[in-house]
């Protein structure tokens, strides 16, 4: 199962990378969103899969699945949500100010 998950993660990362390398805002932001999916799965998988029960003490007597990656991912999900929200609004603001959603046209001024 772990190997299969790693394959999935690799595919997700590759797709995310391809999107991040694009020029339009939406594609790049989608890329970062997919990248965070991939990373969450990666953290979870590296901790080992299905090695024990749900980490709830009143539900089982163990052994439990590694709870630490789960705590990390929980944090990461929330943060990535915050970042996505911020970047989306930033994209909106940049589009409104500059009138383009193409990164290549935002390369700073030529006299810098």
């Amino acid at each position, binding site marked *: 199962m*772990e*190997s*299969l998950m*790693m*394959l999935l*993660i*690799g*595919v*997700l*990362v*590759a*797709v995310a*990378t*391809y*999107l991040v*390398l*694009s*020029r*339009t805002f*939406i594609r*790049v932001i*989608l890329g970062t*969103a*997919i990248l965070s999916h*991939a990373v*969450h*799965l990666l953290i*979870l998988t590296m901790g080992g*899969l*299905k090695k024990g029960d*749900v*980490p*709830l*003490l009143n539900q089982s007597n163990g052994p*439990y*699945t590694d*709870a*630490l990656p*789960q*705590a990390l*991912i*929980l944090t990461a*999900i*929330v943060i990535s*949500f*915050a970042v*996505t*929200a*911020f970047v989306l*609004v930033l994209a*909106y*603001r940049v*589009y409104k*100010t*500059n009138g383009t959603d193409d*990164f*290549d046209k935002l*390369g*700073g001024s030529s*006299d810098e």
Partner: protein
Amino acid sequence: MIIVLAILFPFLIAACIPFIYRSFTKLHLGWFVLAVPVTLFIFLTTYIPQIAKGQTFQHTVEWIPTFNINFTTYLDGLSMIFALLITGVGSLVILYSIFYLSKKESLQHFYCYLLLFMGAMLGVVLSDNLMVLYAFWELTSVSSFLLIAFWHHRKASRAGARKSMTITVTGGIAMLAGFLMLYAMTGTFSVREILDSLGGLQDHALFVPAMCLVLLGAFTKSAQFPFHIWLPDAMEAPTPVSAYLHSATMVKAGIYLVARMTPVFGGHEVWFWAVSLAGLITLFWGSFNAVKQYDLKGLLAYSTVSQLGLIMCLMGLGAAALHLGYSKESVIYTQATFAALFHLINHSTFKGALFMMVGIVDHEVGTRDIRRLGGLMAMMPFTFTIAVIGSASMAGLPPFNGFLSKEMFFTATLRIMELDIFSLETFGLLFPIVAWVASVFTFIYSTILVVRTFLGKVKPERLEKPPHEAPIGMLISPFILVGFVIGIFFFPNVLAKNILQPAMASVYPAFPSAAELTPKISAWHGILAPELWMTIAIIIVGLALYKTLPKWRPIYRIIPENYTLNALYERFIGMSESYSGRITNTYMNGKLSYYFFYIYIGFVTLAAGYFIWSGTFSWTPTTDSPIEYYELILVIVMIFTAVSILFTKGRITSVLLNGVLGYGVALSFVIFRAPDLALTQLVVESVTTALFLITFKFLPELKPERTSGAAKFSKALVSIAVGATITFIGLTAINYDKFLAISRYFEDAYELAGGQNIVNTILGDFRAFDTMLEVVVLFIAGLGVYSLIKLKAKKGDADVEN
């Protein structure tokens, strides 16, 4: 301890200057600042008797002991000379500046920089630790930069400041490398300890490279050929600064370093030739070029270059004694070093006076161009007196101190011919000849300085202001210096015994008796002494050449304008700027996707490259948990979804597909025993999708990107490489078992934190602080979102930058 405070004192006062400046607006700021060097000077003079007896004072304040970097101060004879010059000349220069700079100038900056410099310079000469010395060394460069650019509205000031900074800091970095090599050889940064571990050092492979790098630092700072080009340009600084930094103190830091390092490197042939030849060439080139200058300060700048060369050359010659080792005969060669230290002091006195004199002329008449000056003697008799005494001393005439040290210089060059080490039997003759020729030029420019400025006819129509004598305050400082010029001539041995003798002991620590190293200075060596006839010949030839100057002036045009050192330097800087600009512009093209390409390629090369190189990749599918068929379906669906995002045209479709991926991730959380994650993921994914859809209202339709096939291919290639790298790292990491898992600890959650849900206790209890910060991040993001939505361009602001 008190010496540490002495170094820090100027810095402290510099920090207080803004407050002093604002509280006492009536009085010239210089009067307050003057107290600093005067106090320090008096404080240092109290140490003279003990230092003269051969005592030294060392004190250590631990700073970074793990790296052997400690703030160790060391006061010995050599530091004493420099510290006295820094504070003594510093006092006179500040006194002079009070009358030179009007209150309209931004005095708070000027005195702040000046105090910064003073502290840094004291730090250089009083530090025993090489790293601390280096830090102060660079600080002197920085403060010199600030002071040269004091009138920063002038282009020449800025250019001069930049040039001096570039050259001295380049040398400084070379010196740092040299210090690090010394550390590699001896294991200590302390000069004292390096001196103790000298045995066998000469045979070390790093010995000569370290020596050359340290010398590079010294030569750039002390304006030795071919690095001297910054000094004439630095004359754009206000005259008090030129008198202080660029003739009396900072440029002598290089001499100090050479003197300090002589016991370490001095015995080596490379040292002897590098120092003495660099000095000799500089001596000649500086004096030769001084003659052609029309600007009085330019003339003094080249003259300073030349005199620094003289001192440097003497330091080199004196090192021969170290090669020979201690004996009754070798002591005679140490006199070159003695003459160097003696001339160092003499130069500071007469050159300081001359700079102040030129400053007075500039201040009262409005020009420094000798073609416009002349006949000022009648109007400015006191200034004229200063000029005559200073110039005569510079030219090496009695009864002034320059005569004594110049005679000693000749003696040293004549003696070095008798040696038969370092192939001196062949090249030894070079020294007295070049020395004599350079002295002739020195005589000529000293004559120009006096005659063209003060004698001849007045040209009032070519002057900016009607000439008149300077205020008394401006004359005090140069007259004190001139007093030393004469005083030292008549009582040289007082100076020799109290100041120079202990310094000799610092340069030759291995020689048993400092008293033996101190010759008796006398003005008269008998009618047959070759030095006397050399001086007489200088006067005769010099006067003849001065009279015929217009005839031989064309020799200065032999070197075409394009090939002077300055032009070469400018071209080098200009070219390196344009080339580096061009190289940078090729890859920093302002396109985000290119930058991502660099990052990704860098990541793949480093991470995957290391994996392949080290052979750490391992894959053991046998330890995997079994795959259920529904899991397989989920994974296939997710892969399919992910890939299809790449090929969708509409933005709604891609966002919904991303949602599918998100729910897929939530499902996998369920399968992999992470109910909390699954819940959170479901909520977050729904909100994110909604958020995307809302922003779409304000963003344009997704247009297909017009990119070439090759670009698409390279994008695909990089993406696959990145994905593969992650997969391989992940596969290897799963079976990594070198460390024990730490999660067992959290399974005691109920006992430790009173919670049944382990994940919750980690977030809310064990790592509660992290969670709090996470909330802060959320809060900041929320603020950002809010302000970006609400933000409106202010009225009058352009909507688009630039």
